[in-house]
């Protein structure tokens, strides 16, 4: 493991250097706060941010992605046969992501890279990607990452971790991928004090997180107990079934596959989908197993907090970033719902 230290004044230069061999995505300051997106050449990831509305999900699972292209022109060779579109193999790096967002990428991996099937679109992006984390010294009030098995300084899913230490960024290269990136960026080697300083910052940051969730009792209940619990209609009453929470969520992976055609040329694309949408699960017959708005909301929380937990036996499908809490237009709060589920006592 290699310690890293880089002066803030050298940051832009290092990023310029690394862009020669990497495509970067990172936080960018825009009119209305920071957003996380693919950077243009010469753009520097801005690490002086508190939160990004969208997460690193966009890098491994873009909102829209072309899967295949085809021609409907019967005079052409191979018409009506789907061909994969070329993929840019340049290594990519997501720079400045929060450590708990990196954990979200691992959660996505559970869904997209299973024993039975590997999603090639996710897989190639994932393998190609170096995750350069930026620890969070001042977690926001809605952050509850520490109770989701991760935290503002969690190193477990990153290739590099960086932290703000005043006039410089300090950190560690945690994996081989990380060391490669550090070399390409020409990060200076940090001294022995780095480790201690990181530990100190970590303790401070984690101490600032007051908000938490617990799911110890959810684990022990059966799916049907929770599913049939009486509080769902009330908990979900306010929900307007927009897709805000699912799009902002770094772990929500649902997608939709659509064909688009212009003239005789077509593509098959996949787009983010949201379980809040009415067309998400409606059958062709018009029958919808989750017809009522509150049933769809229940499905979302049950998926995140129970189905996932049971299926993978590895915690909940939530990293505690708090985006859905702060962005929800009607203030439905996953922390409150989780509490409600955990406190529920099935009457038997």
């Amino acid at each position, binding site marked *: 493991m290699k310690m890293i230290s880089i002066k803030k004044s050298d940051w832009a230069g290092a990023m310029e250097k690394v862009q020669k061999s990497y495509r970067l995505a990172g936080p960018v300051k825009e009119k209305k706060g920071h957003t996380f997106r693919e950077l243009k050449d010469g753009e520097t990831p801005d690490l002086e941010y508190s939160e990004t509305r969208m997460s690193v999900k966009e890098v491994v699972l873009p909102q829209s992605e072309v899967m295949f292209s085809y021609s409907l022109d019967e005079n052409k060779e191979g018409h009506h046969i789907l061909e994969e579109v070329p993929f840019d193999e340049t290594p990519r790096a997501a720079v400045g992501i929060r450590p708990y967002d990196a954990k979200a990428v691992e959660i996505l991996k559970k869904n997209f890279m299973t024993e039975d099937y590997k999603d090639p679109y996710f897989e190639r992006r994932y393998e190609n990607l170096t995750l350069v984390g930026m620890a969070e010294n001042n977690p926001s009030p809605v952050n509850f990452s520490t109770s989701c098995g991760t935290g503002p300084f969690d190193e477990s899913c990153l290739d590099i971790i960086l932290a703000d230490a005043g006039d410089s960024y300090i950190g560690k290269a945690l994996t081989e991928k990380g060391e490669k990136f550090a070399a390409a960026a020409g990060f200076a080697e940090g001294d022995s004090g780095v480790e201690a300083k990181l530990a100190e910052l970590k303790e401070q940051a984690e101490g600032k997180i007051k908000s938490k969730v617990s799911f110890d009792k959810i684990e022990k209940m059966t799916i049907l107990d929770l599913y049939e619990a009486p509080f769902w209609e009330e908990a979900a009453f306010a929900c307007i079934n927009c897709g805000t929470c699912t799009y902002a969520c770094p772990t929500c992976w649902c997608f939709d596959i659509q064909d688009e055609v212009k003239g005789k040329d*077509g593509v098959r694309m996949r787009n983010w989908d949201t379980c809040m949408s009415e067309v998400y699960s409606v059958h062709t017959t018009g029958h919808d197993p989750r017809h009522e708005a509150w049933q769809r909301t229940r499905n979302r929380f049950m998926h995140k907090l129970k189905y996932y937990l049971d299926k993978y036996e590895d915690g909940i499908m939530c990293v505690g970033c708090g985006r859905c809490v702060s962005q929800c237009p009607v203030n439905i709060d996953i922390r409150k719902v989780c509490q409600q589920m955990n406190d529920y006592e099935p009457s038997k």
Partner: protein
Amino acid sequence: MRAANPYKPYPVRIDEIITETDDKLLKTFKFVFLNPEDEEKFAYKSGQFAELSIPGQGEIPIGIASSPTEKGFVKFTVFKAGKVTSYLHSMKVGDVMGLRGPLGNWYPWEILEGKNIFIVGGGFAYTTLRSSIKMMIDPANRSKFGTIDVVYGARTPGHLLYLDELNEWGDRDDVNMHITVDGTDDPNWRFHKGFVPQIADKVAPPASDDTYAIVCGPPMMIKFTQPVLDKLGYKHDHIIMSLENRMKCGIGMCGRCNIGKELVCKDGPVFTLEQINKTPREY
């Protein structure tokens, strides 16, 4: 070397189209693979489904109606309902499209071998059952199973699928076919009249550890068949059902087809009633 892209369909050509029902809403499509080696890769078992993939329109999951014992083609019987199926119904022999699969699990043949099979089907959910019967009565397989009883019903004689085959099977003495319609004015109708659950009640083989029921049909039929089987003493782990839900990817990734933690496309579509009882009724 990366594994094959599970979203990429095998190119196929429509070889034959048969209109199955009087209302012309059901057609059976026979597909032939453009690349003969794809047929081997598409090795399937009765009960599985595949995504029919029409470039420019989209994909639709449909149960495989042909049997693994039938070589050289695959068959699907498709009800004209949505965007993709309506377009499919307008296609003609010779057109090229895609086929992706086989997907999902199958009726548990590993367990079913050596057992008595009671098949209860209704309406156009009969396709994978057709595959199963065809497979079981194949000379190479028939000896592997005990008795085979089949109850199959539709609204009217004109709604019955695979009429020729039904007649052929009815003439065999190693399959007990019980065909029924909800009603008909045809004075020459030689089979049962009445709803599937009522007929099932009359003709079902006795429940035993060696008898399994495979039930596939519209929700109403399933709802009323279950008490009949309960009454007859069928255990819930001896009742096998095939579910359907809205799907997109077919490989357990896109999320929507879940019933509880189970994904109908990958963990199903075949479940035992015992399994289904533990999940929310979201199908």
